[in-house]
């Protein structure tokens, strides 16, 4: 399984010099809890950090700072932990575990941001696999019932 098959493709991203206020507006508008920070949204699409809704509360309001004057560069989490769109998801899971991150930007061969893979995406996928396992058990019983009448 590859990250590109299960990640959310349209990651919400923002330039590092924009404000925490701008990021909060993006989170509100796009119903997401994180924004991937890029050096520049036009010329350099490689992720350099991640800012979450929690970072805005804890690092800005919690320190009595003004969200309009704090830049994402000041509050983003670095170094950013990233996943390649074509590596195995098992490796990505290990990396998320090691670094204790719930969301990981996914990049292409040229390090450009192509999506974001979240713990929620992975949980849904693993739960679907577990449900399929249970289905195998049920169907095997049905099949035996039919075959051995």
């Amino acid at each position, binding site marked *: 399984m590859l990250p590109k098959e299960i990640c959310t493709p349209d990651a919400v991203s923002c330039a590092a010099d924009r404000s*925490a*206020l701008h990021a*909060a*507006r993006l*989170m*509100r508008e796009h119903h997401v*809890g994180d924004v991937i920070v890029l050096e520049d949204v036009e010329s350099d699409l490689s992720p350099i950090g991640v800012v979450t*809704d*929690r970072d*805005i*509360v*804890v690092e*800005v*309001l*919690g*320190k*009595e700072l003004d*969200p*309009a004057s704090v830049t994402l560069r000041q509050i983003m989490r670095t170094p950013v932990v990233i996943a390649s769109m074509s590596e195995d998801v098992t490796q990505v899971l290990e990396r998320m575990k090691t670094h204790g991150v719930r969301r990981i930007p996914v990049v292409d061969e040229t390090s450009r941001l192509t999506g974001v893979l979240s713990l929620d995406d992975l*949980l849904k996928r693993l739960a679907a696999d*577990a449900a399929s396992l249970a289905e195998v058990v049920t169907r095997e019983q049905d099949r035996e019932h039919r075959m051995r009448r």
Partner: protein
Amino acid sequence: MNVGSICTRRVITTHPQLDVQAAAELMRQEHVGFLVVVPEQPRGPQPPLGVITDRDITIAVVAKRADPAALKVGEVMSIQPVLVGEKDSVDVALRTMRGAGVRRVPVSNSRGEVVGVLSLDDLLEFIARQMESLSGAIRNERQIEGATRT
């Protein structure tokens, strides 16, 4: 297995008159993203008035350019939060959270006092442990059969 044995017992409470700025500072100090809102001077055990999350603050206060020092927790919190009882089974809690579409719920005791918080994270950990026990049973079955049927 019931909710009381897997939930987090640490509950950080606040009250509706506190300003959002102070609530954010509380979240920072206590390393939590979820506060249970109770009356400032409760008269005996009573259910919480609401809950407020770090996300509520970002979306409903920061993004709207509202002044966090002028807004009160009571104006931003989600009211009448869904509760689960500490004696409820995990199944019941899962159904409740699924029905309401919430990741975190306050846990109350038989007198209605909030005694914990149950999160999706707690439940995931519980289910993962059960799955690990299942695969452990399979591994051990092989090992025991190998040892006893030589």
